[in-house]
């Protein structure tokens, strides 16, 4: 008797690797969405700054639009730059 694998379908979900539990702006969990969205995941992504702080994309964009002059990270007050990996 011999058993060999012919094919296999692996099922997985994914989660964010964030350095915090909650979004520092909306205080919602990163596992859920920003207050405007309904579905977590691709529709409401997270973004990281070069300062390594992480927010819901919708939240940080809204925040940056409210800052007239210096676009700063709301957590560490460093100038905000998106960290493109």
């Amino acid at each position, binding site marked *: *008797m*011999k*058993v*060999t*694998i*012919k*094919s*296999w*379908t*692996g*099922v*997985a*979900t*994914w*989660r*964010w*690797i*964030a350095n915090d539990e909650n979004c520092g702006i909306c205080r919602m969990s990163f*596992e*859920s*969405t920003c207050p405007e969205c*309904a*579905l*977590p*995941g*691709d529709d409401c992504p*997270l973004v*990281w700054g070069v300062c390594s702080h*992480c927010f819901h994309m919708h939240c940080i964009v809204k925040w940056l639009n409210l800052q007239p002059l210096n676009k700063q990270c709301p957590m560490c007050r460093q100038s905000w730059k998106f960290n493109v*990996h």
Partner: protein
Amino acid sequence: MLRAIGKRDRDIFEEVWPDKRRIVLKLLRQDTVSQREWQDLFFGVHFVCLWDEKGAAKIYDCLQQDIVEFIVQAQSQVQAQRGEQALLATYIVEWRKFFTQSNYLPLPFRQLEQSPQVKPSSSGSSSSASVSASGASTSAAAAAAASSCSGQAGKSGGSTSATAGASTSAAAAAASTSASTSSAAAAAAASGSGSTSSSTSTSKKNPTEDSPVRKLMLDSWNKHIFHDIKHRLQESAMKIVHAERNGDAYDAQLVVGVRESYVNLSSNAEDKLEIYRENFEMAYLKATAEFYRLKSAEQQQENGVLAYMKYADSKLREEEVRAKRYLEPSSFSILTYTLVKVLIVDHLNSIIAECPALIRDYETERLNLMFRLMDRVMHGVGVEAMMGDLQRHIMSAGLADMLSASEVITQDSEKYVERLLELFNKFSDLVRNAFNDDPRFLTARDIAFKTVVNDTSVFKMELPTSIANRGVKYTAPESKCPELLANYCDMLLRRTPLSKRLTSEQIDARLRDVLLVLKYVNNKDVFMRYHKVHLTRRLILGTSADSEKEEDIVEWLREVGMPADYVNRLARMFQDIKVSEDLNTQFRTSISRHDAINIKILNAGAWARCSERVSVSLPIELEDYIPDVEEFYKKKHSGRKLQWYHHMSNGTITFVNNFGRYDLDVTTFQMAVLFAWNQRQHDKISYENLRLATELPDPELRRTLWSLVAFPKIKKQILLMEPAAISSPKDFAENTMFYINQEFAIVKNGKSQRRGKLNLIGRLQLSTERSQQEDNQSIVQLRILRTQEAIIKIMKVRKRMNNAALQGELIDILKNMFLPSKKMIKEQLEWLIENKYMRRDDDDINMFIYVA
């Protein structure tokens, strides 16, 4: 004639009139009048009015005497008739003659209504017959005198009359002054006061119709002949109608003639049908009601209610046709009302009493007849009673049907849904055929369907009404219908014997049917939940029969009003599967040896709620692949980490033994268990050692092993156990031994096959060892949240709202998901108040106020 001009005024009338009077009498008798005589008459009247200052009044008086005399003669002729038909016939002949004359005779006398000279003399000599008539001409004269063209009134009036006479048609071109004057005169006369001013009516009428001479003729007829014999006339006419109703043929024209005389006799310009209505119509209605009052009772007694309905229906139609012959259109509605009263309303109860039996026996024709009859009854009393009967019948018949078949349908969702649909179609047909799909009956049907669908007496699922926080569990039974509907959907959408048997169109039709039933289900959230679970299985195992149809039904669900966020989630699931496919392609091209590996990456929020992850020790081959996949994914999506859901993973293994070579579809857990024997195929392995080898949690291992030793519907199991007499996975002990069935083979038609494919997955377990109870609890939990959410949504807009209105809106918002119970609403309101989302008004305990 010219000689006459020289004579003194008062002689002119005596001079001219006797000659003209002969022409008048000829006209009355309808003797031939030559053109010359006709013209002479115009001239004579004109001449007398012009030269004799009291001429108009004299002519009028004289004319009146002649008319009355003529009428008296006619009357004596009519009265002389004994037989009813003869009486009517004579009357009608006389009347027609007279009526025709009433159109012509007034023409030469138009001068009378215009001449101002009539005024003093006529008021002075208004001696006998008709005070009102002479009064009318008085006021007519007065009005004409007041009009601006008084100086030329004589001349212009005369010429108008002449042309009108020549053309014999009504001279509509007469000066507006004369028209308004004459109508004013008529109106004044109608109101019965001879000396009223001319300010009543301004409506334009045919000048001949309003002429005082015509009025004089009609009024005289009315007074001298009609008044005396109208009762005889009516009676005779009604006798004819009565005879006709009894089936004897008579000359219908007699009745028509009488009616015409009633209508034409009216000189009341405001209400032409006054005399007709007060006499003829009333008599007709009375006779009709009396006739059918007797007949209907007789019919019903002799032939029974069912035959009576037919009788009533045919009589109603018959009478409508008859009414068209004998009555003025204005009478139709009151006649119908009278008939309905006598024929239907008076028998309402006995007719309605037949309804339940007719519905029971599907007597669509008779029901349709009954419906048509009842629909005529005002205020819908009868229809309402019928609706009630229908509703009760569908409910009781539907439930009885379900109950009688309960053994089959509680087990088999296909049978259940098909039975339900059959029932629905049967009753929909009934409503269509018997009640013409009348909206009222459709509503009654829908209410009854709802009751049947949501009934809990045949089968139910128990839902805890509140999360058991005080250790007390209440259960509110709910119909299992939504669950069975979802199961049926699954059978249609998955590759099953059922879906293979049906064509694509048939499947579409059945899916539509499911949605139809779903419309009546109160708790749609249960359906959605099960539908999603089934969809998850189909997508992960790739067992959809038709992926296009899968997406179609999502759109259909959107169309029937399923909540948008729910439908969006379903759409998201399809998207995930597509994204995963792309990902697979990329993965395989990046590392060529992994073509057996397939990954499905799901968005956690969109899919059926998965339970906590279960650890398992994978076969070495797979274990090697995992890091490759994770690495690949990390490169594609930074900031993300994969979490494996091995209880949903599955695969195909090739199982080779002495008999043959078999492809087995298995879950990853089954795979892990079977691989334990790969190195030691003849060993017996204890439960305890299998647990150590697979690292599966106890409940999962038990379940997986059970699926391998006792998979339903296969002759030879792949694993055997010792002792063999274990009847449930709970009875596995630590030292229960398991070993590979070396005899394993796929058996088909009693023969062992050398090759073959077998699916050992069965129903993919989406959740781990969570009991149904907990599953249901999550439904309730979700309902609680939805209710709270909806209350807050409403209160945010309304700010203040009383209890009843709030409940109404709440049910409206939630109705596409579930029907919130009063108890739950109350509990959630209390919770929201306790947590300061809202408060009660200090003065009114039923008023809620939103607290920001």
